[in-house]
Structure formats: structure tokens, C-alpha cells
């Protein structure tokens, strides 16, 4: 963040923090408000000793004024979040039982606070009164703080474990709707499948499964990564004759497209995959891809991410980028590059991709039938 942008940010934050306070007792003194704003806007190159001094002062904040720095987490920079937390955690530690349970419960429920603020307050409450904290989870199945939502889903299932089969089934169906963490979704889907309610994991997680895949292009020495072959020269739909694309439908639980199977088992090559997806509304959405290979992704002809990393692990949602989508049909193009490493673990050439909201809820759908 530039110095000028930082100053504007500070001014907005000071104003926002004060507006968000309820009642004069919660309003921080002018000096404290300035410290909060300074910490929240922390950026590379800032005077760290001055930030540490501001965090020291924040650590002395009174219990009835702790909401303002929690609110400031909503607009804080990455460094700023940690500076604020540094002061806040020390304040909570110092205040001990002076941080009343009712106040903490109120902060956890305060929807004007952002997920990190509520999550932090929940942690302080849980450390002081675990049962009181757990009692709040029942209303958190739609929580934006994903750690709290995860805990709420886990509690829903734990509470249902003592019930009859119908109650457990209902709880798991409700949990599947609420869950966003991939491991939790998979565990619930597995339970449902094993208990007479077959659940498609790939469908639940929203993987794009129907693709058109190109033939192999040269990537000797990694040179193909930056080379614009015909498929990436089109403006919207890829610029290549339709007959040259091979339809591939993934039956993998994680929507993997195995290019060794779909194209050929080769090294030093790359391939393109193209999919048409339907979006319910125009606007931004997250494109989430995982691959052990180097990848480039375009949405409607606009490049949204490029990662030239080979065989350094892979994971669902490994790389995430926000892209603009239009309502209805959208075109996603993936370029997936294989290198020439010879180790046994460097043979994989594949990817999986899904399109979600910021919390991980799938947004894109595909028409049934052969890929278009």
C-alpha cells in the first residue's frame, strides 16, 4: 500500500470505527482511535517500533472499549490484522475475568463485526466459559467466520449422534448444506452415502467436470508456459476448430481431469482444457484450481491467474483468483503444463477446478450431456 493510500485508509478507518461504536462509553479516546487506525493500516516499510508502541497502548484498553479495535479488523491490512491482534490478545489476557461473559457473547453475535473479530471474541469466551461458547454455535450454521461455521457443523452432528436414524440423517443433510471446508463436506457426504443417501462429492463441492481438451503442445524446457498457442488466442471461446477438442467428463470425486489419460502420457508438453459454465448472476466469483503442474486460467478470454510451479504438491483450491463473470454462459480456459522431471512422483499431469463464492459455496453449474 502506498503511503498516500495508507493515509486515506487511516482516515476512513478512524471514521468507520467511531461510527460503528454503540454509545459513548465504547468510544475510544482520540489517542487510542489513532493507534487503532495506525495499526490497522500497517504496511511494509512502516516504522515497526512505532507500531509496537501503539500495540502496547492498545494492550491497556478497557474492557468496555474493546469493540473498536475488534471492528477495525474488518478493514485491516494483513500486517494490520496481526498488529491489532497482538494488542487485543494481550488486553484480553490482562483483563482476565474483567472481560465479562455477556460482553463477549454480545461481540460474538455482533454481525457488524467481521468474521475475524467475532472469531477472536469467541476464542476469548471459549477460554473463559467453554459451555457458554458452545451454546452459541447452534445459530452459526450460516456463519461467515468459517472456523465458527465448522465448529457449528461439528456440534450439530455431535448433538445428533444420540438421536435416532431419522434425526441423524436430517442433521447430516443440514450439515452438508452448511459445511464449506472440503474435509468436512467429504466426511458428511461419506456418512450420507453409507447411510442410504448417496451423495456426489464432486457435485457437492461444485467441481467443473465436463471439459473439452486439446491435443498436446510443446513445453520443452518450460518454454510453452509463456507461449500463446492458438487456443489462448480467442477472445471468448478458445480460438481453435471445434473438431480439435476432445470431450472429457471427470468421474473423480474431486473433479480431476487426468491429462495423461485424456491426451497422452508425455513429458515436456502442455494442453488446454475449455469448459462452458452457467452462472446465476453477473459479478465476481472465485476461480479455485489445484494442480501439481504449472497452470494459467482465463475466464471469458481474460487471464485471471498464472502459476509456473511444477510438482510442489497439489491441493483442492490450491490457487484462488477472483474473476468477473456474466450471467448465463461463461467460458473457462485452463492451460496445464507438464515439465520434464523424471522422478516417479513427477508424472502426474492433471488439474481440478471449481467456481465459488468467497466462502466456498459452489456457484457455477454445467448443462448435462456432452461438453459443448
Amino acid at each position, binding site marked *: 500500500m502506498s503511503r498516500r493510500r495508507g493515509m486515506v485508509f487511516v482516515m476512513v478507518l478512524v471514521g468507520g470505527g467511531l461510527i460503528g461504536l454503540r454509545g459513548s462509553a465504547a468510544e475510544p479516546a482520540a489517542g487510542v482511535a489513532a493507534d487503532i487506525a495506525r495499526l490497522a493500516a500497517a504496511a*511494509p516499510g512502516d516504522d*515497526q517500533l512505532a507500531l*509496537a508502541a501503539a500495540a502496547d497502548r492498545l494492550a491497556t484498553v478497557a474492557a468496555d472499549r474493546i469493540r473498536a479495535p475488534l471492528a477495525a479488523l474488518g478493514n485491516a491490512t494483513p500486517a494490520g490484522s*496481526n498488529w491489532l491482534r*497482538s494488542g487485543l490478545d494481550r488486553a484480553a489476557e490482562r483483563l482476565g475475568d474483567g472481560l465479562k461473559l455477556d460482553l463477549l457473547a454480545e461481540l460474538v453475535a455482533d454481525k457488524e463485526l467481521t468474521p475475524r473479530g467475532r472469531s477472536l471474541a469467541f476464542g476469548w469466551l471459549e477460554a473463559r466459559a467453554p459451555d457458554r461458547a458452545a451454546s452459541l454455535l447452534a445459530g452459526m450454521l450460516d456463519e461467515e467466520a468459517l472456523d465458527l461455521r465448522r465448529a457449528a457443523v461439528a456440534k450439530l452432528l455431535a448433538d445428533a449422534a444420540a438421536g435416532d436414524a431419522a434425526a441423524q440423517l436430517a442433521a447430516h443433510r443440514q450439515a452438508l448444506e452448511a459445511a464449506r471446508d472440503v474435509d*468436512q463436506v467429504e466426511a458428511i457426504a461419506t456418512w450420507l452415502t453409507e447411510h442410504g443417501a448417496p451423495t456426489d462429492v464432486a457435485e457437492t463441492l461444485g467441481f467443473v467436470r465436463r471439459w473439452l481438451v486439446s491435443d498436446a503442445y510443446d513445453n520443452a524446457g518450460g518454454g510453452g508456459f509463456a507461449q500463446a498457442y492458438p487456443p489462448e488466442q480467442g477472445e471468448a471461446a478458445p480460438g481453435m476448430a471445434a473438431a480439435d477438442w476432445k470431450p472429457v467428463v471427470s468421474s473423480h470425486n474431486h473433479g480431476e481431469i487426468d491429462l495423461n489419460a485424456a491426451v497422452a502420457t508425455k513429458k515436456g508438453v502442455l494442453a488446454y482444457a475449455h469448459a462452458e459454465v452457467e452462472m446465476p448472476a453477473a459479478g465476481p466469483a472465485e476461480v479455485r484450481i489445484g494442480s501439481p503442474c504449472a497452470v494459467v486460467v482465463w475466464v471469458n478470454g481474460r487471464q485471471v491467474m498464472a502459476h509456473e510451479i*511444477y510438482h510442489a504438491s497439489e*491441493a483442492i483450491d*490450491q490457487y484462488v483468483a477472483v474473476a468477473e463473470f456474466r450471467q448465463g454462459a461463461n467460458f473457462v480456459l485452463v492451460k496445464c503444463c507438464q515439465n520434464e522431471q523424471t522422478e516417479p512422483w513427477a508424472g502426474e499431469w492433471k488439474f481440478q477446478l471449481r467456481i465459488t463464492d468467497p466462502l466456498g459455496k459452489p456457484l457455477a453449474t454445467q448443462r448435462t450431456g456432452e461438453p459443448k
Partner: protein
Amino acid sequence: MRSMLALAVVIGMVAGPGGLRGEDWPEFRGPGGRGVAAGQAIRSVWSETEGIAWKADLPGRSTSSPIVVGDLVLTTASSGAKQDRLHVIALDRATGRRRWERVYWATGRTLCHSTSAVAAGTPASDGQRIVALFSSCDLFCLDLEGRLLWQRNLAVEHPKSGNDVGMGSSPRIVGDAVVVQIDCQGDAFAAAIDLATGADRWSVTRDPIANWSSPLSVATDTGPAVLMQNGRGLELRRLADGGETWRWAGDCSGIATTAVLEGMFLIPSAGIAAVPVGGREPAWRAAKLAPGIASPVAWDGSIACLNRGGVLVVGDTADGGIRGQLRLAGMFWASPIVVGELLVALNTEGKAFLVTVADKPEIVAENQLPGTFAATPAVADGSLYIRSETALWKVAAPE
């Protein structure tokens, strides 16, 4: 590039402003990163129920080693579904009671292989401050009371830094700076960061290849320097300005860190290549001394390596001659350390082998703790500090 052939070079802690005590174990593999605690003696028998001073359960998971500074034992961990909560934890050295714990949010990538952790790098201390580097490329500096002094979110500053296998290099305090080695396929770099202010002293671009070895502090007669390696070789840089003063090119481990002893770099390179400091050609090579993931340990004219098959090989640093070898059971991610007359090798299943290494290696004891272990033990005042992924034990000093 200046030849250093004539320079007397010794490995060791470069004098800094801090208040380390002789009995501290302040960084990865102890003082100077040597993995040697000369003159100490540890008890020969322990278990979950015997010889334990205390056990502390820890949050999340970790593969980093504990360090011992004054009356504190410090360790790191990460927690949360995405392992994006970064913990720095201070335990009371005498009781194991938690003195303080600080949690921060990761600002970089937190994916890693199941055998590693976001808390993989071992923290370091100069006796006044603690620096902790996580796989997310977040570097935090705190005082001994848990007050955050400065932070560097290196993946924010270098957006393509990081490695989804997990970064494992530990920070190294050299003089009044901390050196970090951020080797990866993206934005690879190394930097010396002022301990007092958190500002860069220097930063240099490195080869864009993954690497998990840690920098070493080296005292030369021209001032403190830092030794860094990757799969393509070694380089020595001045602490003052980052200028390169020596380079050795050759196949090199990207995990096991070079040992330095008596003017010789003992480089994990298809076995061990013993290259005189400032030299180019190895004085000797020993293929049988083949460290796997664990770093070699060198002391008093000896070197010991644990290979990927769990075979401990002990040799002479004068010529690479093999004195003996011994098959230990299991896999080893923790590096062996030498305490007095014993070598301690801890396998991933929590079995610690105590091996006499003065002559031909022989097992004298095997002690078991429960859990999964990847961290190199720490030792201070005859007590061992052994960390599993989720707990830390203090093995009491012998009575």
C-alpha cells in the same frame, strides 16, 4: 570474488548484543547450528512414565524444534482447518507451565505436505528476542515477555514466495541480524533483517528452486558471514552487505544442511563432500556417509550421517574413512545431535536411540515416547526437550 583460502574460518555463534547463557539452546540444532552439546550428560533411560520432568500438550501441530532461552522453552505451532493460525508459545523451563502464547494470522500460503507443517522452521533467539518464521513466510520478532516487536509478512512483499510442500528453512541469527532463506520455485530470495528494527539490511535473489536447508552463521576474520545452500551448491555472504565471498557449485542436498568443522565444509552431496573453506575441490568424498533428510553432525574429528534407510554411519573428518555403521529402526526426520559421549537419534515414531560414537557406534539405550516426531531435540543443562507434533516432553537431567 575474493578467495578465502587464507582465511581462518570457524563455525559458531557470531557475537551479538543479546544475553544468551552458555546453557541455552537458542536455535535450530543448538548453538551455531552444530547439533553438539559438549560436556553435557543426559539420562540414559526414559519413557512416558519414567524420567520425565514435565509434559506440555500443545495446540495444533508442528515439526519445528523447541529452543531453550533463560527460563523459557519456546516452540511454535499452527492450527485451524487451513493451518492459518500461527502460534508462538513460551513454557516455563522448570515446570512446563504455559507462560504466554501469541497467535497471529498467516498472510501467505499454508498448504503443506502431511509430513511437514506450517510451523516447520525452528525459532531462534539472541537471548533478548525471539524470531519465528513460518511456512507462510511470516516472520515475527517478540521479546521474552511475548510482546510483538516487529513482523515481516514476506509473502506479501514477495507474492510468489512459498512452497505448497511446505517451507522448512529455519531463521538464523547472525550478529545483530536474522537471516532468512526463502527458497522456492517462485520469488526466491534471502535477506538479512535488522533484529532491532525489522528493516532489511540486504536482500538477494536466489535460484528459483525449492530447498529446505537452513542458513548457517560463520565467523571469518573479515567479519560475520552466512552460509546458504541449495541443490546447486553453497554460497558464503558477508553479513554486512550481503556480498558473495565464496561459492561452490555441485550437486547438493536441498534438505540436509552442511556441517562445518575445522575449516572444512562437510557438504551433503551424493554422500559427503569435504571442501576446504574457500576451496573448490573436495579434499575427500565419502559415498557411504549419505545423509537423507536428517542433517549430518560433526564433532571432534568425527561425522555421523543418518541415511534414508535409517542406517547411522560414523566416519572421520580427516579423510572420510568409515569407523562403523549401525541400522536403527524407522524413519528419521529429526537430525541427530551429540551430547557428551552420546549421539541421540530420534525416529518418527518417538524412539530415541542413544549411541556411543567415540569409536565404533553401538546402541546403549532405546527410549520410547508416544506420538509422531519430526523435530530435532534440544538439550540444555543435561535435560532433553523432545517435541512431537502435538506435545513437548522435558526429559529430566540425570540426578
